[in-house]
């Protein structure tokens, strides 16, 4: 065997040019095949690593993908809104560790503005388990604080202290801008290669305050109309995006001093107010800051069917910011939930999806990302097929070069036969040669992939925001390499068979 290996190596070495070219063509196609696989895995990994550490994303009843895309990727608009009180109610759930609001609806120079809480910056994880870090400043705490992502800071040239004006809606034109409530950058996030880099974060209070002041402006213009206790006065604003209306939502229970619109179910103006119910009295002045305690906000009796006791919002739970503005239950577009125990996420998801108080859709990010990948990942199949063809072409090239070299090597085969080499020896020699070619091609191809990765890693990260990790080969790559090696070996049998036949017939004296 060692003789055959020595012969094969010496023979390959003696044909440096064809050997080199054959190996190069195999190496390039292996580079293509493994490279595509590596990039695909990288894209998938970075895709799956867009959001980590969040067990559930909860939004208004709607499509899973819609909630995922609107909240995590900032694509499209959310299906609806969720009451802040609902989030707070769920925060009390025994399985829930933390909740973080994630409210969309405004923009700044084309970047999405998200209302959240400082806890968001602690809880959010990306890639494997990376936390958000600040390159400057810190989280947004006050209602004029703004935290901006890496891309926002780069593109707009903002630094800590830069004043920011937030615009309602995603376009700068047409819609109202909240000039009256100027924000200021207090923190810049380090690069994450996720949509966070293109986001602007403010506090929920900030959004609220901004809309509050905005409303005051509009109110001045429309005082006359507002005098009419028509629900339509507020309803006209319903055309705006939900987050914007959050401050103006005509929550019927929360119209202190105004005549409640007829037919508002919860206040039941036609009904006799039960004596001794101080807060529901129409026309009565309810004490400011207690709107949530209204019985109407209570869950309907059916909710008690829920398997777990859903904690009722406690009046005391109303946070102070909300208490200041007595416009009732604030709306957010989504919230993130972290569970105490990961395994409870599924159960919690089902519970939320069947919440009778408010129609919700809870999404497990990993699952939804997986579904999304299924949909968009089909392009990879095409790439793989192309790469497979490249491999087939280079293997065929190897066959051609081995086969044509055989004619020149008939003497060699004849000599070996005359010395006593059996057909099996000739066969092993040629198959070993083709296997060696395939092996060299694989090794060099994989080497090229790693070299290419090492070189392109930086630029790709800069240009495309895609982090390509230098990692060990996966099972798919090994499978591909195995296929290439196997094909190389099989191909060796073709010239070997031919050599066997010819060397038997005219091995000892080939015509010259």
């Amino acid at each position, binding site marked *: 065997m060692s003789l055959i290996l020595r012969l094969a190596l010496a023979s390959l070495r003696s044909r440096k040019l064809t050997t080199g070219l054959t190996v190069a063509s195999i190496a390039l196609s292996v580079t293509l095949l493994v490279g595509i696989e590596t990039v695909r895995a990288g894209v998938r990994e970075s895709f799956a690593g867009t959001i980590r550490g969040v067990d559930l994303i909860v939004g208004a009843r709607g499509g899973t993908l819609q909630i995922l895309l609107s909240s995590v990727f900032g694509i499209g608009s959310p299906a609806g809104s969720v009451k802040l009180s609902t989030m707070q109610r769920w925060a009390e759930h025994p399985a829930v560790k933390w909740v973080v609001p994630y409210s969309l609806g405004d923009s700044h120079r084309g970047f999405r503005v998200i209302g959240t809480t400082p806890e968001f910056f602690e809880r959010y994880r990306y890639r494997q388990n990376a936390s958000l870090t600040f390159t400057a400043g810190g989280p947004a705490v006050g209602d004029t604080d703004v935290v901006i992502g890496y891309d926002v800071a780069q593109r707009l040239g903002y630094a800590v202290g830069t004043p920011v004006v937030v615009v309602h809606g995603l376009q700068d034109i047409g819609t109202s801008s909240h000039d009256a409530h100027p924000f200021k950058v207090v923190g810049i996030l380090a690069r994450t290669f996720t949509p966070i880099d293109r986001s602007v974060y403010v506090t929920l209070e900030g959004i609220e305050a901004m809309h509050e002041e905005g409303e005051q402006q509009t109110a001045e213009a429309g005082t006359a109309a507002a005098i009419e206790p028509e629900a339509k006065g507020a309803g006209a604003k319903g055309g705006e995006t939900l987050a914007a209306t959050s401050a103006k939502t005509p929550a019927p229970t929360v119209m202190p001093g105004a005549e409640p619109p007829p037919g508002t179910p919860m206040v039941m103006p036609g009904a006799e107010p039960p004596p001794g119910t101080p807060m529901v009295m129409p026309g009565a002045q309810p004490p400011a800051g207690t709107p949530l305690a209204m019985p109407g906000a209570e869950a309907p009796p059916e909710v008690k069917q829920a398997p777990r006791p859903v904690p009722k919002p406690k009046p005391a739970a109303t946070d102070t910011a909300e208490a200041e503005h007595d416009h009732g239950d604030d709306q957010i577009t989504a919230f993130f939930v972290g569970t105490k125990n990961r395994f409870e996420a599924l159960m919690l998801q089902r519970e939320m999806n069947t919440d009778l108080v408010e129609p919700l859709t809870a999404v497990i990010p990993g699952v939804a990302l997986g579904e999304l990948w299924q949909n968009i990942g089909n392009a990879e199949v095409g790439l793989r097929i192309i790469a497979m063809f490249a491999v087939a072409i280079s293997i065929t090239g190897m066959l051609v070069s081995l086969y044509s070299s055989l004619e020149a090597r008939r*003497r060699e085969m004849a000599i070996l036969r005359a*010395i*006593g*080499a*059996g*057909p099996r020896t000739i066969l092993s020699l040629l198959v070993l040669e083709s296997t060696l070619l395939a092996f060299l091609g694989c090794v060099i191809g994989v080497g090229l992939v790693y070299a290419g990765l090492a070189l392109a890693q930086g630029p790709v990260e800069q240009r495309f925001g895609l982090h390509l990790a230098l990692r060990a080969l996966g099972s798919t790559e090994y499978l591909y390499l195995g296929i290439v090696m196997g094909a190389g070996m099989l191909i060796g049998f073709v010239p070997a068979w031919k050599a066997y036949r010819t060397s*038997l017939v005219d091995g000892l004296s080939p015509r010259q």
Partner: protein
Amino acid sequence: MSTATAPAVALSDVRFAYKAGRDVLAIERLTIARGETVFLHGPSGSGKTTLLGLLAGVLQANRGQVQVLGEDFTRMSSGARDAFRARHLGYVFQMFNLIPYLSVKENILLPIRLDAGRRARLGTQSFDAAVREVAGELDIARYLDTPIGELSVGQQQRVAAARALIGHPEVVIADEPTSALDTDRREQFLQLLFRSCENAGATLVFVSHDHTLMPLFSRIVELGEINTAATVGSGA
């Protein structure tokens, strides 16, 4: 075993055809004793190469017996014939005898590297000593590490002879090994070949057109005379 006492070559009633029904070789009887140096000649197409193929066990007779050293090739599998050839035969071609990407030494060593039986014939002798011995006899000891391409044709043929003789095979078959050499080199080469065969106790079957070499051999076989198929063929 009969191997030790049997003649080097014994053919009886041998028929061979590449295509069915068209015999190129039909030999009633041919026996070559051990230690003979046989000059085998005949016109082109008389079946010399075919006969050598049969003697080397590369070709299989359609009929009759081909015995080499007492072993009947017609009853052996092709694998067994390959092994037998590796062990007991040396073969020298007309030209292009050497594997170009191996050194002179590696070319000479090929037969003993390829076959354990041939290796065993060296006894306690090391590979290196075996190569030196045979190369010394053929006067090529200086070229052991020279690239094949730098050797003259005569030197190449001597390397081929060394390769055929290493490990002391019983039978050496040479297929017009001198046809590419100058006349004065031919005799020199033959002298070396004879001496080596004699030292190794090998039987030499030498095919050539060159009748001037005839007197040097112990026996001359005219293939046209013994091959009835060729006679019929040329007569037709």
